[in-house]
């Protein structure tokens, strides 16, 4: 499942609730790998007081659905959950959750890493940081 939302969320509670909502997985799941991305209060040498995440509504959801489907096609996994914020965020706010459930850990780790890497390099989100010297668009990661 994917969700793109402006509301704050609790990544641990969401992962727990999603797993609890699938009692049919009981005993079939040997591994869960979770990535939580959180807003830091410093970046590229400056203090960040807050951030606004712009996104391309519609394309974002399509992209996250596609990446989740690719992960399911490439690795033997049971399910995935991706939640991503947009709009205004404060330091320490969770930005993104990627959770992958599978029988064995190797598939869970690889699929989780694949989804977050694809999301970071391709999903249409843009971070605008508010710093002491004004607003700035965050530069993309090298590579």
């Amino acid at each position: 499942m994917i969700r793109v939302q402006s509301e704050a969320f609790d990544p641990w509670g969401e992962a727990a609730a999603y797993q609890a909502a699938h009692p049919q997985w009981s005993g079939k799941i040997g591994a869960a790998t979770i990535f939580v991305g959180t807003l830091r209060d410093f970046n590229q040498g400056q203090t960040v007081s807050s951030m606004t995440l712009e996104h391309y509504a519609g394309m974002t959801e399509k992209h996250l659905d596609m990446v989740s489907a690719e992960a399911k096609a490439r690795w033997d996994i049971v399910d995935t959950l991706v939640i991503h914020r947009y709009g205004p965020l404060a330091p320490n706010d969770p930005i993104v959750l990627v959770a992958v459930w599978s029988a064995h850990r190797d598939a869970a780790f690889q699929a989780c890493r694949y989804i977050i890497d694809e999301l970071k390099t391709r999903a249409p989100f843009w971070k605008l940081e508010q710093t002491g010297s004004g607003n700035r668009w965050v530069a993309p990661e090298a590579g």
Partner: protein
Amino acid sequence: MVFAKMKVITVRYFASIREQLGRGSDELDPGGIINAADVWQKAAGSPAPSRILVAINQEYASLDQTVAPGDEVAFFPPVTGG
């Protein structure tokens, strides 16, 4: 007698591209437009900047990809989500 409404090309801009153009979207008459580069030229009045990303109907595309009336074409800088 009913005339079909002419389909426009919807153009959308995000992040720094949106700020530079001073607007979030345009609706363009498809006349003279063959590909995404033509869309940018007609909307912005200049050739597309380097490193700009293009999506047609919410899928990544290249500047030389064909655009049809009714399409949604988006221009944006490299993404920074996650």
